[in-house]
């Protein structure tokens, strides 16, 4: 299994203490080299096309499973934004062919087991947690939910009510509001990556649509299953076979994601809201997952905000005391990535804090980072990567998710190497290419009663109403 074999080497190399920074003030011993071999997962494919990854883990009497389905809110049809979220919730709440909602929940909770669903832009998932001794019973419910959800009308109504109430509350939290509206501006209010659920779109979703979602995407050849825990692989495979062999395969056609045409360059969107701490976002373009600049951009971002010693934290928070929360990160969505820089500051220092953040971003285009700072930034990246793999279950989930999201086949295998190869010149070049004024804008929520001065120095002001 390509991902895993080479991953073993990656792990060992990183744990040798790559970019070991000589700690000058304290005399610390040099670390001994670490060796670590990840167990190879068992990989099987059923006749109906379902791919299964299994890792035995006998440390605890527990079994966890994660099924990933190639679907997601990116493919919500026009006029029915929210379909994927709604369908996945209704799938969980609405019972199945064999189990009423009450029967299913009673059984799961009697056993202390859990089945939950989730919906993201580019995939949906169902996860399962059970004591090892209860797996056959829990797996039976899990499988029926996958193959034959019932979408009980009463439960669907309750789910719908939950969505409607959520829409009413969507501007209660200023930071969440700014994040959502910022995304809408960046990608465009009609683009799948920017579009917002509305009461009309939720109300337009009928049970037929939920069933349609299920029958369209829930196919074994359109899904991957990961299972880790206290079992013997061949026995688990038998169980999965007995439960999911009759799941019918079929063709899948996904909607194409259109190119992004929105452009709000230079604007400063201001939403009036009663806040003590004003959330501010600086949004601009970034590489998507397939872009060759991805790793270089990650290192660049690590210099900017990868740790407490990084630029934004030191300058905006530690030295000037302007923010508690200041951060930046890349959302590498296809077809267009978005780079987010965010902070929260009291109303009358919005201008000062935002200007400083912009200055730090732009400095990376002009100055070359020192070798020491670069090494720290790389070291921080590599080691946070490693800690995603604490248990066999985490490893499997991470790998199948990354694979599904379209990261290059050799992403894990070459990650450490690629990060280590990034030079200070690469970082500067990436900053020049991606931290442009082109496509960059600002969005914030502020309290007009508590704001001194204007934000005109930041750009062209546009007032937005919170709706």
């Amino acid at each position: 299994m390509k991902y895993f074999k080479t991953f073993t080497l990656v792990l060992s190399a990183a744990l040798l203490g790559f970019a070991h920074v000589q700690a000058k003030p304290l005399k610390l011993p040099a670390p001994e080299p670490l060796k670590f071999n990840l167990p190879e997962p068992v990989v099987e494919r059923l006749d109906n096309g379902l791919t299964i990854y299994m890792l035995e883990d006998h440390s605890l009497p527990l079994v966890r499973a994660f099924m990933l389905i190639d679907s997601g809110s990116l493919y919500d049809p026009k006029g029915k934004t929210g379909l994927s979220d709604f369908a996945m919730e209704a799938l969980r709440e609405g019972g199945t062919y064999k189990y009423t909602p009450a029967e299913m929940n009673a059984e799961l909770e009697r056993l202390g087991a859990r089945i939950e669903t989730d919906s993201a832009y580019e995939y949906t998932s169902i996860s399962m947690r059970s004591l090892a001794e209860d797996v056959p019973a829990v797996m039976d419910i899990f499988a029926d939910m996958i193959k034959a959800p019932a979408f009980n009308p009463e439960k669907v109504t309750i789910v719908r009510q939950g969505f409607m109430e959520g829409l009413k509350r969507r501007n209660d939290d200023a930071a969440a509001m700014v994040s959502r509206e910022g995304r809408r501006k960046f990608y465009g209010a009609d683009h799948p990556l920017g579009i917002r659920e509305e009461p009309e779109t939720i109300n337009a979703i009928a049970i037929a649509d939920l069933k349609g979602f299920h029958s369209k995407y829930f196919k074994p050849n359109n899904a991957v299953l990961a299972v880790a825990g206290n079992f013997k692989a061949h026995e688990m495979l038998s169980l999965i076979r007995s439960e999911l062999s009759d799941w019918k395969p079929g063709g899948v056609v996904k909607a194409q994601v259109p190119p992004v045409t929105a452009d709000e360059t230079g604007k400063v969107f201001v939403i009036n809201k009663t806040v003590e701490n004003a959330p501010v976002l600086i949004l601009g373009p970034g590489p998507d997952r397939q872009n060759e600049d991805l790793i270089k951009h990650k290192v660049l971002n690590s210099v900017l905000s990868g740790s407490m010693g990084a630029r934004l934290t030191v300058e905006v928070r530690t030295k000037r005391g302007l923010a508690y929360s200041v951060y930046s990160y890349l959302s590498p969505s296809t077809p267009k990535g978005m780079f987010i820089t965010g902070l929260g500051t009291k109303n009358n220092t919005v201008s000062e804090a935002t200007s400083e953040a912009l200055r730090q971003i732009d400095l990376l285009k002009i100055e070359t980072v020192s070798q020491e700072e670069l090494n720290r930034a790389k070291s921080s990246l590599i080691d946070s990567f490693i800690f995603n793999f604490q248990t066999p279950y985490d490893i499997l989930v991470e790998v199948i998710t990354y694979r599904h999201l379209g990261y290059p086949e050799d992403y894990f295998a070459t990650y450490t190497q690629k990060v280590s190869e990034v030079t200070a010149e690469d970082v500067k070049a990436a900053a020049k290419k991606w931290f442009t004024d082109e496509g960059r804008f600002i969005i914030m929520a502020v309290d007009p009663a508590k704001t001194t001065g204007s934000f005109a120095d930041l750009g062209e002001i546009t007032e937005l109403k919170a709706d």
Partner: protein
Amino acid sequence: MIKLLTTALFLFCLQFGFALNAQTQVTKETDIQKYPAVTKAVLPNGMRILVMENKTAPIVSFYTYFGTGNVDNEMGKTGLAHLLEHMAFKGSETVGTNNYRKEKVILDKMDAVAEQINFERDKGSSSDPAVLRKLKEQLTALEVEAAQYTVENEFQQIYSGLGARGLNAYTSADVTAYIVSLPANQLESWFIIEADRFKNPVFRGFYKERDVVMEELRMGLNRAGTVLFYKMLASAFEAHPYRNPVIGWQSDVERLLRKDAEAFYKKHYTADNAVSVIVGDVNAGEVIKLAEKYFADIPKGKKHGDYKTHDPKRMGERRAEVLFEASPLMYIAYNKPTYHSKDDAVFQVIEGILSSGRTSKLYKSLVEDKQLAVSVDASAAYPAVRYDNLFIFYAAPRAPHTVFECEEAIYEEIEKLKTQPVKQEEIDKVARQIEVSMISSMTSNANMARTLGTNEIIMNNWRYSWDLSGAVKAVTPQDIMRVASKYFTKDNRSVIWIKQTGAAAQDGGK
């Protein structure tokens, strides 16, 4: 047969594997059917070390707990324990500076100016703005001067260079925890860094960090749920310091001084008030040896009392509305005894029956049957557990239903608990859920360390969660009726809710 072997191994280790200082007491858990395999060491200075080996991956989680939190702040200095926690990242006489001797002089001058600023501001309306402006300029000038001797964020950078993950800390009302995970080959480095940090701390950059904490405080004030929670505590506790927000009252935090933090540190951050928990790819014997080497000379600390103002007797129900620009929410709080009480397990079961999962009473009633709420929750132990605390209910109503309808529905379920014995299978269900939760938490080094550390530092018993898991099984339907009847009374409750203001409210909540 196996038991004999285990015992023999244990004795072997005790005799030959643990070449320790004679005064360090080491105990290794042997009942590993019931408890995780934890080794506990108590150093001569009273510091406790808990170790649990987990060789799944070559990583280690470290949690150091001090048995002090924001409940220990003096009046007028709320938020100090939390600000101190921030200061514990500022380095030491060695880390974070290129010349401590020169730096110290400036830091002391800054303290004097900061104190003068307080003195002037405390005059309130008769304070002189010109004087204040001048003092602030002086403080800024000193900060600039001090900066030349500061190596900014050096502490964090040292950890970064070792491959650290999740370098962080948190302060609750009860405790303060310092957290980090490292690759397994950096074990000794952790001891060196932490020993230096806690033996020779320097709270540099205090006044700027105070500004940072003020921003953190303000972020909380943005959120309806957070604000309502603070108001709930202040209502349910009249005098006891659990009534204070962990982050502190705004006017207190603004005037905290470095000397306040130093005094708090000296009083509470002592070896006998500390537990370090190490979970991961380690060898217990080696860890304890390192602890002896690096932590044995952390000062023991003077004995001091633990008085906290007692709440006066309750004199009836408390009710209050809170005007906020957000949709309605409600908290209902009942005062209750904390974990010392023999009824601790009963409260856990009540929490589970009322609120755990889709078959729970509140979910079925408020979300499914009556459809009054989109979210409803019950929790047995807020805000913390060192002192008598609260059993709280939370509801987010579904428009056009109101918090008051949710309130009535909650009381309906509470009344049933008092008068109708629950079925044994409901208690069994909760016991099972807790058990599986405990097992599940053991998949993570960090979660294990957190559970072990919290139990040991607060209850002096790292086994507490596992004991509770067992005690829950013995709870009877009669216990539940008795406890519900005693504590869930009108006079014993504080009810507080958000009333929506702003444009949305004027639109009739559209």
